């Protein structure tokens, strides 16, 4: 398999993000900047985590617990960053509103705020896909392929692309959910995000068992669908609420 396969894997992991990027984000420079900075935040978190765990790698034991510990700390750390990101965003939003007032443009609409959250989440998701999937895809552009022993049904590239797609979805949408939760003070929305992230990450532990990927991938996609559904419902109600409120104010 050559270039075609490599491009295929890449698009499998990042295709939806790419189309979302072109459709929504590329037209608005500010969203691109948000995306980039959120990617950078994720990268920094990954570097910090790897600095933390570097000394213990690679794990000698075949047991689960070191991996579970890695995932627990990683998810905890990344979820701790999210409120921080929110706080920065909050300040930025005030600034944007001030600027909008000064150039006599309308303030941020609710859709604008959601788009900012989407861009922020997509930064996380894309960073995940890039570092966990894309950066290992290089060999797939060449003539060879690679199978891991634990998941012999498909090539490693395909598995990692499929998993990356699920995580991109989860990361992207959970930022929208979380931001909404913070804005509304909605506890459910605030807590569902780390929980989903943790469950999804823990599901990948199944891959350590022989043939585990057959089970874990559908479960992972189940989580992605749950996130998608929750996000969709939430956005729908927010928009409907907003419309009715606007309608009554006129």
């Amino acid at each position: 398999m050559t270039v075609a396969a490599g491009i295929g894997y890449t698009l499998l992991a990042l295709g939806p993000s790419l189309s979302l990027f072109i459709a929504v984000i590329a037209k608005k420079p500010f969203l691109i900047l948000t995306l980039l900075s959120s990617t950078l935040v994720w990268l920094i978190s990954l570097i910090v985590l790897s600095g933390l765990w570097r000394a213990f790698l690679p794990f000698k034991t075949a047991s689960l617990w070191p991996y579970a510990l890695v995932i627990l700390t990683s998810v905890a750390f990344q979820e701790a960053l999210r409120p921080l990101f929110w706080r920065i965003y909050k300040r930025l939003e005030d600034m944007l509103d001030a600027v909008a007032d000064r150039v006599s443009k309308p303030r941020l609409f609710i859709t604008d705020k959601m788009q900012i959250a989407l861009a922020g989440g997509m930064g996380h998701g894309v960073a995940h896909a890039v570092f966990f999937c894309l950066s290992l895809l290089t060999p797939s552009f060449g003539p060879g392929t690679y199978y891991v022993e634990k998941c012999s049904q498909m090539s490693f590239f395909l598995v990692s692309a499929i998993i990356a797609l699920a995580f991109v979805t989860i990361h992207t949408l959970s930022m929208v959910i979380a931001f909404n939760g913070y804005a509304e003070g909605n506890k459910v929305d605030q807590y569902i995000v780390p929980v989903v992230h943790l469950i999804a990450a823990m599901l990948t532990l199944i891959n350590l068992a022989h043939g585990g990927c057959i089970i874990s991938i559908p479960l992972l996609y189940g989580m992605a669908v749950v996130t998608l559904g929750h996000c969709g419902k939430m956005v729908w109600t927010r928009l409907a609420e907003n419309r009715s409120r606007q309608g009554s104010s006129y």
Partner: protein
Amino acid sequence: MEPGGSILESIGQEIIGVMSPVSICMFLVVLLVYSLYNPATANSNTIRTAANLVYMESPTDSTAQKLEGSLLNAAVFIILIALVTFLLVLLYYYNFTNFLVYYTRFSAFAVFSSMGGSVLLSLIQHFNFPVDAVTFCILHFNFTIVGTLCVLSSGGPIVLKQSYMVALGIIVAAWFTKLPEWTTWALLVALAIYDLVAVLAPGGPLKLLVELASSRDEELPALIYEARPTVEMRSSGVRGSTMGLLVGGISGDNSRSTDGGVELQAVLRNNNNNGNENRGGDSIINVLENESNEIEVVREDVGESSPLIGGSSLMERLPSPSERRNNDNAGLLEGNANSRGSRENESQGEGFAETGLRGLKLGLGDFVFYSVLVGRAAMYDLMTVYACYLAIISGLGCTLILLAVCRHALPALPISIALGIMFYFLTRLLMEPFVVGTSTSLVMF
């Protein structure tokens, strides 16, 4: 919701206008390095250029030897650059402007013809692209001539100029990636420091050059990427002033005087002393001074041809959006018509006012050395490429924001290069084993 009403569409436009060509340049250099770089033959055919005059790296040398040699190389290169820059300042001071213009054109010609030709040739060889020599020569000659005419003239479509600038950056960067590893790193660090000194220190050559140019009301005869809007952009109401506004918001400074828009000029002198390719092959002196990345802040009064003086600039702010839009477009047209708008020194010492709408400007040296860093990272792994790319872009963003805050000439290399190098080594030493370890066992988060 009115179309285009959102503030999100106008804020950060100038930043993106600079970032996207830099990204394109880096991306293409990475592709080039990926397709052409071959670790097996990498060390056999290093060429002697001005950047490794003193020391030729060979993989068998000890680390101390490599370090010492690469530091020496970098020092020699920087001294050469500094000398040539001072020479240029001198020439410019005594009004040899035409000489400088033709010299820059000549060096652009040399880069496009010889270095560009060799890059193209190796591409053709690598991909077995069927083309005969005559066709190639004709096409390449045309490419070169158009490029040479484009890079310094104010006529011609701006898109063409911009793409030739990017092409120039790619070619030079591709050439620089052939340097041995240690020398590359030493060189990048040295250049970042040199840039800092040359732009910020009193009496620094680039600072002198820019001040000279601005006091004379001229454009520097240098290779600069202009992020001017290509055609009249769709109704971009507040273009050119949003960054100042945003930063004004950051610093909590609500006085209207920040409203004047910010323009950067990262001026790059590309004095390619390509005493190129002595085909006899002893020593190829290839002095590519692509330094100089100062950025100057220019106050820009949109659609206002008389210079604003302090008081009045406080008065005339905030026209209605539509009015502003008209002003903008008028300014744009004017700016395109006479690219050298009459600038006048403002008495308040705020810098200088300038008619016509101009975008940000970034020196070609930034393009080149950002791309060199990313290209070097590409020889290791894709992961380091992404990390370095993000670091460089965020460094560039920081520089732009810093520029809007402190509003005087700023070097564009130091922050980006420092971040880039830091992230490269962090990624290579810390992150790579971790990520590869977890993801090959399909554990992700």
